[in-house]
C-alpha cells in the first residue's frame, strides 16, 4: 500500500480517518503538502484549510483554527483545535462573528483583548473564504 494514513482529531471527536493520496496543511511556515514517504515532521498549524485527496480520488476540504501535526512513518496525525468540513460551514454565523470582531477591534476601549478579537476575525474570514461566499 502506497498510501498515507490520515487522522484528524479534535477535542470533541475524531473528524477524519482514512487512507489518502495527499494532504495539504496550513503550517506555521506556510502551506505544505504531504505525500507518501514524507520525512518525519512535527509542525504547528495556523488558521487555514486542510485539503485531502483520498485514495479513491475524492477531494475533501476542511477549515481549521490551528493545531499541530505529526508525520511519522506514513501516518499523519492532525491535532486540530477545531475542524469543519467546508460544506458544513455556517456562513451566516461566520459573517456575524466577523462583524462582531470588527466592531470590537474598531472600538477604542482599552479593556478589549486585541489578540483574541483578531484571532476571532481571522477564523471568521477563513470560514467565509473557503465556504466560497463573499462578505
Amino acid at each position, binding site marked *: 500500500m502506497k498510501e498515507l494514513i490520515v487522522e484528524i*482529531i*479534535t*477535542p*470533541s*471527536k*475524531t473528524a477524519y480517518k482514512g487512507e489518502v493520496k495527499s494532504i495539504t496543511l496550513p*503550517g*506555521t*511556515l506556510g502551506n505544505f503538502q504531504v505525500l507518501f514517504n514524507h*520525512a*518525519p*515532521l*512535527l*509542525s*504547528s498549524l495556523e488558521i487555514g484549510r486542510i485539503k485531502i485527496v483520498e485514495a479513491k480520488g475524492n477531494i475533501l476540504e476542511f477549515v481549521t483554527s490551528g*493545531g*499541530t501535526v*505529526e508525520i*511519522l*512513518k506514513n501516518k499523519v*496525525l492532525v*491535532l486540530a*483545535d477545531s475542524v469543519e468540513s467546508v460544506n458544513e460551514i455556517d456562513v451566516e454565523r461566520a459573517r456575524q462573528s466577523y462583524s462582531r470582531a470588527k466592531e470590537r477591534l474598531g472600538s477604542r476601549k482599552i479593556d478589549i483583548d486585541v489578540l483574541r478579537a483578531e484571532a476571532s476575525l481571522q477564523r471568521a474570514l477563513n470560514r467565509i473564504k473557503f465556504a466560497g461566499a463573499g462578505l
Partner: protein
Amino acid sequence: MATLRDIKRRIKGVKNTQQITKAMKMVAAARLRRAQENIINARPYSRKIAEVLSDLLNIEKNINNPLLTERKVENVAVVVVTSDRGLCGGFNMNVIRFVEDMLRNELSEFSANKKVQLYCVGKKGNDHFTKRPHKVAGSFPGIFSQLKFEFASGLVRELTLKFLSGEIDKVLIVYNEFRSVIQQKTTLEQLLPIKPFNKEEEKVIHAEYIYEPDKVGIIEKLLPKHLNAQFWRILLESYAAELGARMTAMDMATENAKELIRSLQLTYNKERQAAITKEIIEIVSGANALKES
C-alpha cells in the same frame, strides 16, 4: 393510630415520589451514555497531545518554560468542580468536604492569610463556598447543561494568565473522577505548574523529526493545548460521574420507595382486616344479644 384513609393517602404519595425518582434515574442513564461517549471521543486528543509533548520534552531537556517551572508558592488557586443540580447522593458533599479539609490542613497557612482563591465550577460548590469566609475568585454555575470546549479553554486561559503574571503560583483541581457508573472518586490534580510527564513507557525515538517552526515554538504552542485538553477531560469526567451518582441515588430512592409501599400496604391490609373483623363481631354480638332477650 393512622386511619385507613391516611394510610391510603400516604401510599399514593410515596408512589408519586417513586415515579419521579424512577423517571430521573432513566433520564440520568440516557444522559450518562452520551456523556461516556463524549469522554471516549475526547480521549485520543488529550492522550496524543500528552504523548507528543512528553516525547518532545524528553528530547529537549533544557527547556525553560514558566508553565513547567515550580516556584515558591505564595498564592494558590483551587478549582472546585461540582454539579449544577442536586439529588445525586454524596457527589457534591464529597468534593466540598475534601476542599474544606484541604483548606484546614495542607493549605491552612494560605487560607488563613486569604491566599487561596477558589474557582467554583458548578452551582453547588458556588452555593457552598460563597456563604463562607473563603475567597471565591470565579464562579461558573450552570455550565453543565451545555458543556462547551470554549468554556474549558476560557477558564484555562484566565488561570494561565494569572499564573504567568505571578498572581497565583499553583493551580489545583478537585473533582469527581469517573471510575464506573456506580463508582466515583474524589480526586486532586495539579494543573499548574505542569507536572513532568511520567516516563514509564520510554518510547524509542524513531526518527529525527523536522520541526516547524522549531522545538521550543512547538512546545510553547502545545502546552496550553495540553492544559485545555486536560481540563476538558476533567469536566467531562465530572459530568459523567454526576450522572452516575444520580443514577445510583435515584435507583436507591426507587428501591426505598418500593419497600416503603410494601410495608404501608401491609399495614393497610391489616388495618382493613381488623376493621372488618370488628364490624362482624359487632353485628354478631348484636344479633346474639337480640336472640337472648
